[in-house]
């Protein structure tokens, strides 16, 4: 009861639904208020230079000439934080020419973990609007083939626009439920499953998410995520890499899904090799998960100064 009163007070103070804060208290304990405060701190916009069309140095020079104050992102040679800009970052000529994309570092790190290579066959299962898809194509140097799927009629239009704008030419996009994709019968070298999720990690950039979800959403989305990860495993060749990511803090959408995959599919977790981020949870809300989940990574706005995110890298062994 004491905890509930604390949840009620914190929910009121920071504008959340009470059930969310109750969950955060169970997950983060004494750090909960720090976590909530961190979600109210603005995160600088980040751009990712599209090296298929231009070099990071050239794009940075042109944008700096327009008055943008840029700062390199450590570990991502094509990315810059936009600390300040007198012009709209998403409406410059360079943007329209496809020289860069607005993208969070967490999204870029997910693709770095996937590590797509030129000449491979890669699948992006929930691709629209295409930020991660176009980075995969960029790292593949427009070679090999990238199959991108999305179920949404509206969102796949954005995917098409972004593929064209960013000069991607190694992609084939299909509008369909990715959970049914295994029927196609292809075996990919790498699969990205950036699963649909409750999106709590995006609260720093979209505070409406403090109120827009209810507890049932987590349960509903977890079922979708289970179906998708089973399909993802079937789409991989033996030795292929599967990266699962979400922008959710909920263990039901992250560790619990991976734990399910470890029991149902011939996959094992490998290190993300990311030099930062918290280890994934081994236990949450009274559930114990596979020990190897400590190899997954969690990003929190209050600790890592980027959107909340979860990344897990797996390899298919049979």
């Amino acid at each position, binding site marked *: 009861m004491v905890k509930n009163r604390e949840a009620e007070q914190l929910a009121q103070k920071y504008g959340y639904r009470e059930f969310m804060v109750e969950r955060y208290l169970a997950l983060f304990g004494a750090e909960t208020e720090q976590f909530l405060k961190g979600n109210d701190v603005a995160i600088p916009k980040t751009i990712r230079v599209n090296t298929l*069309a231009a070099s990071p140095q050239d794009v940075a020079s042109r944008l700096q000439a327009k008055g943008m104050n840029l700062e390199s992102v450590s570990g991502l040679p094509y990315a810059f934080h936009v600390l300040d800009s007198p012009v709209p970052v*998403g*409406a410059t*000529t360079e943007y*329209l*020419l*496809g020289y860069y994309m607005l993208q969070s570092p967490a999204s870029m790190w997910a693709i770095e973990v996937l590590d797509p290579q030129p*000449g491979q*066959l890669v699948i992006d299962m929930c691709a629209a*609007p295409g930020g991660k898809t176009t980075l995969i194509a960029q790292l593949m140097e*427009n*070679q*090999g*083939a990238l*199959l991108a799927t999305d179920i949404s009629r509206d969102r*796949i*239009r*954005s*995917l*098409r*626009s*972004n*593929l*064209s*704008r960013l*000069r991607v*030419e*190694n*992609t*084939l*996009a*299909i*509008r*369909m439920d990715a959970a049914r994709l295994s*029927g*196609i*019968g*292809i075996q990919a070298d790498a699969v990205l499953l950036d699963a649909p999720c409750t999106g709590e990690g995006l609260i720093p950039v979209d505070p409406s998410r403090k109120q827009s979800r209810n507890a049932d959403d987590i349960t509903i989305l977890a079922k979708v995520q289970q179906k998708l990860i089973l399909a993802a495993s079937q789409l991989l060749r033996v030795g292929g890499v599967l990266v699962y990511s979400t922008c959710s803090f909920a263990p039901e959408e992250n560790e619990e899904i991976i734990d399910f995959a470890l029991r149902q599919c011939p996959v094992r977790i490998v290190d993300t090799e990311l030099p930062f981020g918290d280890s994934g949870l081994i236990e949450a809300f009274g559930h114990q998960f596979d020990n190897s989940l400590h190899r997954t990574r969690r990003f929190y706005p209050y600790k890592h100064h980027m959107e909340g995110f979860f990344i897990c890298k797996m390899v298919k062994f049979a």
Partner: protein
Amino acid sequence: MQNGKIRLIFTPPSAAEKEQIRQGLAEYVPEKAVKQFLKKYHLLLAKGRRVEVYLLTSAVWDLYQQIHSYRHPYFLGLFLGELSQGALQPSLHVLAHLAESVKDSARAVTNQAGEQRFLYSHQLKPQHITQLPSKVNKMTKLLVVNEHHEGLGYGQLKTTQTGEHSIKNQRDLGWYLRRGR
């Protein structure tokens, strides 16, 4: 592109359609550059309400061959443009691939002030145009480029009563902000 009501047919172009594609690009790019460019790809048409032309690398072509009997693509490879009334309307982005090869006779250069106007779908006035082809007809269709010679879109040349030239905006990259995303 994919629509539950309209059945799309994917097919390689006929000889006549290939010629229309070649001619459409040759309006802007020298024949030799067109030939070099097209040589790298497989051509595929998606015929529905409109006829869309796609260029596919060998790897994307192979993937298309594997999946097309199971599911029609929504989009693939590089969108070259649309075939309409026997002519190719090149896409806004394909000429970015070919920008360096675009013929002087098919290109108008605009200054920075004109660049901003043009990307907001306005026409270019005489003071915005810094370079025009030496020989132009009244209705010449041009690729409009900025001072870095980057393609911004297409326009049609107009001549005023005083003999000055302006360029009517037909399509520009700002489309992405207005409707594309």
